[in-house]
């Protein structure tokens, strides 16, 4: 593997949201421990294509570079993932980089993921506290419940599960696995549970849980190994119970 002298990146580019996409290739000297980010940084330092043409550096999003911020999601060799943990020595050459397709492209590999955050508002993904003044300790929670919540709470809103989901598209309202999993996270908290019904109602309408086609690809691409299909099943059960409850109450 280490015999590689250079690495070719072939990148799908786009200068603005409405512009036509096009492809460009770059050859970058091989370096030990290189990842997609360090290669893109090398291109910034020398923005010249494989054909020797001076071009604009590639625009992409990233921040923490250690897979906790969720920023650098892109499609690498056809698979959606974080660019920081995509190590060059583990990838097949040439490497193809594309922006996610389920969110509006802004420029090159940058997309607008606002929809994820709007969905978090719709399902009230928060614990409704009375105020931030000191009211003593929080509710007692078993460490088992904590462990269950922690895994769900590692969701970085990176968008991988939504990109992979056949149901989630640019022009529909499907909320997707990330959102359903957050409903489960907050319903598991003793104070959060006080809004259980509102959260469930929010995922029972258009774009809600019943639109899930059960393709199960979300869980395969999640960089944090969040048990998304379990969340979907659980929220499915919770909404079914809620429906029955609604029949008797309304």
């Amino acid at each position, binding site marked *: 593997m280490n015999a590689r002298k250079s690495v070719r990146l072939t990148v799908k580019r786009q*200068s*603005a949201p409405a512009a036509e996409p096009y492809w460009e290739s770059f050859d970058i000297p091989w370096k030990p*421990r*290189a*990842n997609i*980010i*360090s290669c893109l*940084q090398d291109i*910034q*330092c*020398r*923005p010249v294509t494989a054909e020797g043409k001076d071009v*604009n*550096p590639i*625009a992409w*999003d990233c*921040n*923490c*570079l*250690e*897979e*906790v*911020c*969720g*920023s650098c999601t892109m499609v690498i060799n056809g698979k959606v993932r974080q660019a*920081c*943990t995509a*190590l060059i020595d583990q990838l097949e050459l040439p490497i193809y980089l594309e922006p996610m397709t389920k969110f509006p492209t*802004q*420029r090159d590999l*940058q997309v607008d*993921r*606002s929809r994820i*955050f709007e969905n*978090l*508002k719709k399902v009230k*993904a*928060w*614990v*409704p*506290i009375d105020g*931030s003044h*000191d009211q003593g*300790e*929080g*509710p*007692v*929670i078993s*460490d088992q419940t*904590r*462990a269950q*919540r*922690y895994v769900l*709470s*590692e969701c*970085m*809103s990176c968008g991988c599960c939504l990109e992979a989901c056949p149901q989630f598209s640019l022009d529909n309202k499907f909320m997707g696995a990330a959102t359903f999993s957050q409903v489960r996270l*907050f319903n598991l*908290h003793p104070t*959060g549970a006080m809004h259980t019904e509102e959260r469930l109602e929010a995922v029972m309408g258009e774009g809600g849980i019943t639109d899930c086609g059960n393709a199960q690809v979300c869980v395969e691409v999640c960089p944090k190994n969040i048990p998304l299909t379990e969340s979907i099943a659980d929220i499915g059960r919770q909404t079914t119970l809620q429906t029955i409850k609604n029949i008797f109450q309304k």
Partner: protein
Amino acid sequence: MVQRRKKVIIIGGGLAGLSAAMKLCERNADVVIVSFQNLKRSHSVCAQGGINAAVDAKNEGDTPEKHFYDTIKGGDFLAHQPLVRDMCHQAPAIIHLLDRIGVAFNRNEEGRLAFRRFGGTLYSRTAFAGATTGQQLVYSLDEQVRRYEHDGMVERLEWHEYLSAVIDDQGVCRGAVLQDLRTNKIFTVKGDVVILATGGPGQVYVRSTNSVVNTGAAATTAYLQGAKYGNGEFIQIHPTAIPGQDKLRLMSESARGEGGRVWVPRKAGDTRNPLKIPEAERYYFLEENYPLYGNLVPRDVASREIYEIVYNKSMGVGGEPMVYLDLTHKSEEYLQDRLGGILDIYRKFTGDDPKKIPMRIFPAVHYSMGGLWTDYERDSAGFIDHGSPRNQSTSIPGLYAAGEADYQYHGANRLGANSLLSCIYTGLMMSRAVINFSDNLNKSYEDVPSTVFEQAESQWVSRFKEIKQMDGSENPYQLHKDLGDVMMAGALIVRDNSTLEKTVASVKDIETRFKDVKCVDTNNWANPVPSFINQLHCMIELSKIITKGALLRDEFRGAHYKPEFDLQQPKNFDPYEYIDYLERKKNGEEVSIYPEGHLEYMERFEANNKKWLKSTIAEYKDNEPAISYEDIDTSILTPRPRKYD
């Protein structure tokens, strides 16, 4: 007095910014929160090990006063004591708040908070959520802010960059100049107060544990606009990081808090598999040199020891500047539960599983103790007056700073798990200051002539026009890397004046080369390059603050280590002797009663403190940082020599 709701512009969506936003919404202010990216992406997510609060959950006799003492001592007495004391006393309430908003803190068998050990203390006072505590805290606070956004009190300006404060002719901050990073349009936002919660400047060194956005540009711009910058030369080098091309990823101190041991083979150049090296042939240098604190000495101490081992003794693993951090004696299940997040990071980036084989780690730039000078007010009893508009105010009225962007909580060296605390503490605590400052304004921003805002905007519009026209021969990203190399070579763990003089000159060279930069991106939509060139300019100015401050400070204090000025503490010295010595001196009693060499050492220590126990203040004058020194409030604890063995 202003009668409408207050309007506060918060720059930065990390822990300090989110805490301030949440609290200000509770106080009925309208909040605009500005961030480069979506709020969940801020650098605070990188904090791993935990957050300190002395709740004494393990019945070890811990108290907030001990937390205060450890923090002050850890910082080598360079922090303002009343503030640190207030922070440590607020810490338990902060942890309880975080627990109530749903942070998935690890718990004990009764379902209450679990705590673990961390560096620079002998108590278990660190609450944690696996090994991604920062991420979990950011998410929970972000959720609270989202709730207020849902209620219409918060406007998020994501994909926006802060360019500068708008300052009126009375010198008061009246708003901010921002740039939309998608349309690249520059505009102003008016407000009663602007808060800079913009984090640290790790990118000055390029490769550090910091995130890409941590350029320190916002704080530097405030300095260029006249704000004082404090203690710039105090840069924390974290002892344990993972090497990488793009970043030196942090390996949390919690790895040692959970029992991780640092060692090298006793025989330099030993090429055996570490698991095959018997116990007797391993040199656990921290445990041997510091029997009391062992692997949990403060970060400045650990980094210096690793430096000594790998450079002066050439005992680094495989001849490289690396040491082992070993967790293999712990059960895999325990490690996954307590440290899973960081061990996964190590495995993903190196291919080795730290549960099975010792990690190879080395020190990396991590945190800036220094930052924007901020004020505070003590009441007559010596406590912090929480209602004072002076708290967390920079030297520009109406411009406030919080979190890593300020300078006054960690002295010369920060203790692990205190940064999350200081971010949240400052964010929450400053809310009354901000409201009261706004109440006291004799003129509101609505009455400030519109020309003030128009001028600020047009200044930046023309500045960016100039930048876009830069057509020299230097690539700005390459020049940034070169700046990083200069700073790494000259202003790191071990410092000396002749190298620092060269570093100051090299930064000047970079500054000269900067004039020849080419704006390498011609796109007129979402073009990040002009903005990066402006940040690079700020990083060069900040490098000057760091290097000049380091050059001028002729002493060894905390993270600022100049061997030439090491006071050579005698091996058997007890810091209490110094307290005794001061007492005797005050009473006119005999002082020549101490073991040989101790009195001389104490006299050196006293004289050094008299000269150097001061905050470094940098002010921008004639394109240079003008350095002066300010006294520190040491009214509670007598500064004394540090000792951890």
